[in-house]
């Protein structure tokens, strides 16, 4: 990495510098770390920003009013890319991916091309409307479901995700369990995000508690639980600013900088494609409009996967992924 570039002091945050925070790029330099790409093994596909929920922590500001949806042509380009490069993991995300009318085609065409196909679900979109067929589709294609459940407490969960979400989420988890998810070869994972301007709990301890409480109260089982910090972008950042928590939260993330987390960061091994087909190092850089390799590249123009050692675009939101145990 170019040292003069890494020490430049203008790590802006959408035009606003956060006082008392060392720019992320500078933190890396202080620790003598270069954040560069490794071998690319994962393709993350963001199929659109439309969502039936408008969660307060969403870094993409997804919601019912958004109209950005991956079209059939871009889906075909994604499938062609997956066919060509044969990733180890493909991770379908959104918005609520369930609301994309091309999701069935995407799953059916990607499934034979990858050993691990994941679908990120908010648990309400999966079961609402006439989308019951999606659960069968996921089961039949062995899709791993990664579901958001921030808290075991209804009020706390709904403070993040909206009224009525908690009970629907519990009901969907029970239906998934009844189909074999979380209790057979069908994998059901949970994601826990904090419900405010604080860091996530220990993943191991939280998994143990969620396992006990979900089983005892609702008879729900799952495979793995991931505890991730909220990224100070999008709707969550607006809330941090409005509530006067932005500087304290950024300081908390920066104070938690863990150099040992850097080698395992997801941005080193994934490429993320946006709803309109452009490439990024991760979904957060997508939200921040920091393109892969420093220039906008469409997935249909991707000549080769990023070379190991190539630089990764960073900004202060990257502190989210290096705080504590990291965001992998």
């Amino acid at each position, binding site marked *: 990495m170019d040292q003069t570039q890494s020490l430049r002091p203008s790590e802006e945050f959408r035009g606003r510098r956060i006082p008392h925070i060392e720019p992320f790029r500078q933190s890396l330099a202080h620790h003598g770390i270069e954040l560069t790409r490794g071998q690319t093994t994962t393709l993350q596909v963001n199929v659109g920003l439309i969502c039936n929920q408008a969660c307060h922590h969403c870094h993409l500001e997804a919601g019912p009013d958004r109209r950005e949806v991956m079209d059939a042509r871009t889906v075909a380009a994604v499938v062609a890319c997956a066919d060509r490069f044969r990733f180890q993991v493909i991770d379908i995300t959104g918005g609520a991916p369930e609301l994309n009318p091309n999701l069935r085609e995407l799953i059916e065409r990607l499934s034979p091309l990858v050993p691990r196909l994941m679908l990120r679900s908010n648990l309400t979109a999966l079961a609402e409307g006439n989308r019951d067929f999606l659960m069968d589709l996921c089961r039949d294609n062995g899709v791993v479901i990664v579901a958001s459940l921030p808290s075991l407490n209804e009020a706390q969960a709904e403070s993040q995700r909206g009224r009525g979400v908690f009970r629907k989420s519990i009901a969907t988890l029970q239906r998934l369990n009844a189909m074999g998810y979380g209790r057979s070869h069908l994998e059901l994972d949970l994601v*826990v995000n904090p419900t405010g301007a604080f860091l996530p709990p220990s993943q191991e301890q939280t998994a143990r508690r969620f396992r006990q409480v979900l089983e005892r109260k609702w008879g729900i089982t799952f495979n793995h639980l991931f505890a991730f910090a909220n990224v100070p972008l999008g709707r969550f950042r607006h809330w941090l600013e409005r509530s006067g928590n932005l500087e304290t939260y950024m300081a908390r993330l920066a104070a938690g900088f863990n150099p040992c987390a850097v080698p395992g960061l997801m941005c080193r091994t994934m490429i993320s494609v946006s709803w309109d087909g452009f490439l990024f190092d991760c979904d957060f850089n997508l939200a921040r409009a920091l393109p892969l390799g420093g220039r906008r590249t469409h997935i249909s123009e991707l000549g080769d996967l990023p070379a190991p050692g190539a630089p990764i675009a960073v900004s202060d939101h990257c502190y989210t992924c290096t705080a504590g145990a990291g965001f992998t």
Partner: protein
Amino acid sequence: METYYDPQDLPKFEEIGRDAPELAKKFFDYYQAVFAEGELTEREKALIALAVAHTVQCPYCIDAYTRACLEKGSNLAEMSEAVHVAVAIRGGASLVHGVQMRNIAGRISL
């Protein structure tokens, strides 16, 4: 200084070790060991600490352990119940002394 309690003082806690470093080290090592996961989880210990913080009415501790409880995965309902445990013990401690009052009154009353 406008008030005795300043939130900016909390991060300065470790400065207390400057003039008695050995004692401070023993205290902070002990403190860290107390809050590590043992027979009780870190989350449970943070809830106990929150309740005790309300008993000793320490604003620093209430600030620190409100945040700690949330970061350990507790929710507001659990934290409120923990505070009520402190309140019950404090209130109960007063009320149980009513037995002394009754004993004394009984001794000196017709």
